[in-house]
Structures are given as structure tokens and as C-alpha cells.
């Protein structure tokens, strides 16, 4: 079994080009998860454009991919109309909703290609785009167990987990984890105290080899109700769930490379103080991990 995870876009809200974000900058959410021959694409942010080019360059075989969107905010769908394989008749793209009778994701992808927004109509995409669903939250796709978990985010969002052969990856972005903290008052009163997370969220992430999680904010720049988490809260989440590796994802658009490095260093310090064996790093484009 082989499992690869590659980051094509890691920024939150809007792309962040420029000199101050050379290391962590660029495109919005798009992560490729390859499990043996199965190709999963988590979110269709602007990073999806370069993923499309890479897939066509990698092989002349038809592209057959499973697209899972955490939700349909702009920064998670904007790359889709620029995904070149979608214009090839040989491509099959399965687009997932969580519930069986839901077609929201498919409808909204189609909607963003209306003539007011984009010059090419959805119906002109030459590929086979198949509305699919996760059977209420858990299904097996090409031998991979794929689960969904609803998160706190304006308009709601979903985390996804991919598991095969004892290896597990969780993609959990656009989640205001802080709103689910059981001892919420401690976050301000005793910021160093462990932030306890609900049992169902911990079970979803339990023992993940890799947790890719929304860590947009620091403790001091957190915006209550904006739908994103404090990095310290995510660290506590990963520790309690027994994750092995944590990737701080969906960096705030205002954060420079130095800011993201600072966020990672503070996360490391918190892990050390907790005496936990957890690796943490900041998500950056072009990075590929091999797990399992």
C-alpha cells in the first residue's frame, strides 16, 4: 500500500502571492491524497489549477478522480473552472456530497460557471462529472474507507478521513474548533490549560498518521465566529486524538512567512510543554509526504 499527500494550495480565504509569502504562500486550499491508484482531491481552491496541469504531465492515462469539497466558499472552489482535466472527454470526476439526496456541491460548482462569473459554461466541460455521495458519512471508495464529519463553520463544512491498511489521513479545514471546546472559558483565563474537545471529534481523528487542520489564527488574533481555529486549540486537538503529525493549514491572508514560522514555533513549544510526541509543521505548497 502506498499513500501520498501533496499540498497544492494551503492559504485561507484568498490567494497570497508576493515576496513576504515565498515559503508558505500562494494558492488556496487544494490537497491531493493518493492511495495506491485512487486519487482524491480535497477542495478545489486555486491550487487545483496546478494540480490539473501536473496530472496531465504525469501520465497519458485518463484522469479518474474523486473530488471532496469541505464546503463551497470561494477559496475552496475557485480552482475548479481552471482544472484542465475537466475539459477532457477521457476524464471522470466524481463530485461528492455527504448525504445521499443532496446535490448542493454539484449545483454550486455549476453555479460558479454561469456566464455572469465565468466565460465557459459548465455544460461545455467535456469530462464525465458524476454527482456522488458519501452514503451519510462513511463509504468505501476503491478500497479506501472515506468518512465525513460535520464541523462548525458559517454555512457548515465537512472534514474527511481516508484510511487503508492501518494508515489514516484527516483533512479538516474551515473549522472553528474553539467553539466546541468544553472548557471554553479557560482559553482566555488559562491559555496554557489543555483545551478539551468533544469525544465525537476526537474519535473521528483518533490515531491519525496525519492531521491537516485549519489553524488560521493565533490566540491573540482569533476572530470569534469567523469559522476558523486558533493554532493552540488545534495542537490540543491533535494531542488528545493521538495524531502523529499535525499540519497547520489555511493560513490567514495577513500572515507572512515569518508569521507562519512564529505560529509553528509556538505550536512546537506547546507540544513540548505537554510532553507529547507530535510533529507539527506549517502547510506549504509543493510539499509531498509519503505515509504507509
Amino acid at each position, binding site marked *: 500500500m502506498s499513500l*501520498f499527500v*501533496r499540498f497544492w494550495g494551503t492559504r485561507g480565504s484568498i490567494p497570497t502571492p508576493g515576496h513576504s509569502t*515565498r*515559503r508558505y504562500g500562494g494558492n488556496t486550499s487544494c490537497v491531493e491524497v493518493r492511495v495506491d491508484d485512487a486519487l482524491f482531491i480535497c477542495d478545489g481552491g486555486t491550487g487545483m489549477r496546478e494540480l490539473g496541469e501536473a496530472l496531465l504531465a504525469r501520465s497519458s492515462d485518463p484522469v479518474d478522480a474523486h473530488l471532496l469539497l469541505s464546503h463551497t466558499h470561494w477559496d475552496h472552489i475557485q480552482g475548479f473552472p481552471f482544472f484542465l482535466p475537466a475539459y477532457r472527454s477521457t476524464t471522470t470526476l466524481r463530485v461528492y456530497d455527504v448525504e445521499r439526496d443532496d446535490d448542493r456541491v454539484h449545483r454550486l460548482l455549476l453555479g460558479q460557471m454561469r456566464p455572469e462569473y465565468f466565460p465557459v459554461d459548465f455544460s461545455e466541460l467535456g469530462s464525465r462529472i458524476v454527482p456522488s455521495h458519501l452514503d451519510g458519512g462513511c463509504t468505501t471508495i476503491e478500497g479506501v474507507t472515506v468518512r465525513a464529519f460535520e464541523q462548525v463553520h458559517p454555512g457548515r463544512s465537512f472534514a474527511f478521513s481516508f484510511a487503508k491498511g492501518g494508515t489514516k489521513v484527516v483533512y479538516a479545514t474551515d473549522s472553528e474548533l474553539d467553539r466546541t471546546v468544553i472548557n471554553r472559558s479557560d482559553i482566555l483565563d488559562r491559555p496554557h490549560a489543555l483545551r478539551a474537545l468533544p469525544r465525537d471529534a476526537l474519535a473521528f481523528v483518533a490515531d491519525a498518521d496525519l492531521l491537516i487542520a485549519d489553524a488560521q489564527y493565533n490566540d491573540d488574533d482569533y476572530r470569534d465566529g469567523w469559522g476558523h481555529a486558533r493554532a493552540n486549540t488545534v495542537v490540543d486537538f491533535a494531542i488528545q486524538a493521538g495524531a502523529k*503529525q499535525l499540519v497547520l493549514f489555511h493560513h490567514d491572508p495577513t500572515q507572512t512567512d515569518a508569521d507562519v514560522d512564529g505560529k509553528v514555533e509556538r505550536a512546537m513549544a506547546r507540544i513540548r510543554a505537554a510532553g507529547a510526541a507530535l*510533529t507539527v*509543521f506549517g502547510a*506549504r*505548497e*509543493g*510539499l*509531498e*509526504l*509519503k505515509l504507509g
Partner: protein
Amino acid sequence: MTEETTLDELGIAVRLAAPRRPFVLIQLEGPGAPREVPLELPEFVVGRSLQAHFTIDSSRISRQHFTLRRQGPDYLLTDLDSANGVFLNGVRVHSAVLRDGDMVQIGDVVLLYREGDG
């Protein structure tokens, strides 16, 4: 023409004539350190083998440990299924687009990547 403008023009001429700064790998730790290798090829292999472009004589390094492949303005590092892996800034990676100041660790060897302008 004043003396000042002459000096200015001279300064410009000197800058234009200066060689472009190459991309380099600087070995900070491990057998052979310290040393510096310019990345002058589109593909560059680091390993224990004498056939590697950058040979490091360490038993903890595979014969062909990783490659650096030029991709536009960047170098892409790829682990060649080495026994002990490649660590980028402390994280084990399969591949990565390198950035100035990245630390690459393989076995007992630490390499610093510096971007050039060539």
C-alpha cells in the same frame, strides 16, 4: 559629465559584469563538511555513490539518496526511496519545492539550500 555620474555609470557596469549568483547546497554537518556545491545542472543527485553529482561518504546515506530537479525558477527535491529518508526542516518528506534557507537532513548530514538568481 560630473565625477559623480561617472562613478554611477561605473557601478552599473560592474554590476552587469558580475557573474550571476548560482543556487548552492552548503553542507554544514557530516563527513566532508563544511563545503559548498553549486547546482549547475538541471538534475542533481546527492548520495554515497561516486556517480552521484554530490558524493557524501556516510554509511547512513543511500547510494542515490535524493535528486534536485530544476522546475522553472525552483528546485524540486525528491527522495529516491532512500533507506533513512529525507528531512526538510525536521519533517520527513517525499518531495518538496525548496525555498531559500531550507535545511535538508539526510542521516548525519545537514545541508542548507540557498537560492541563486541564475
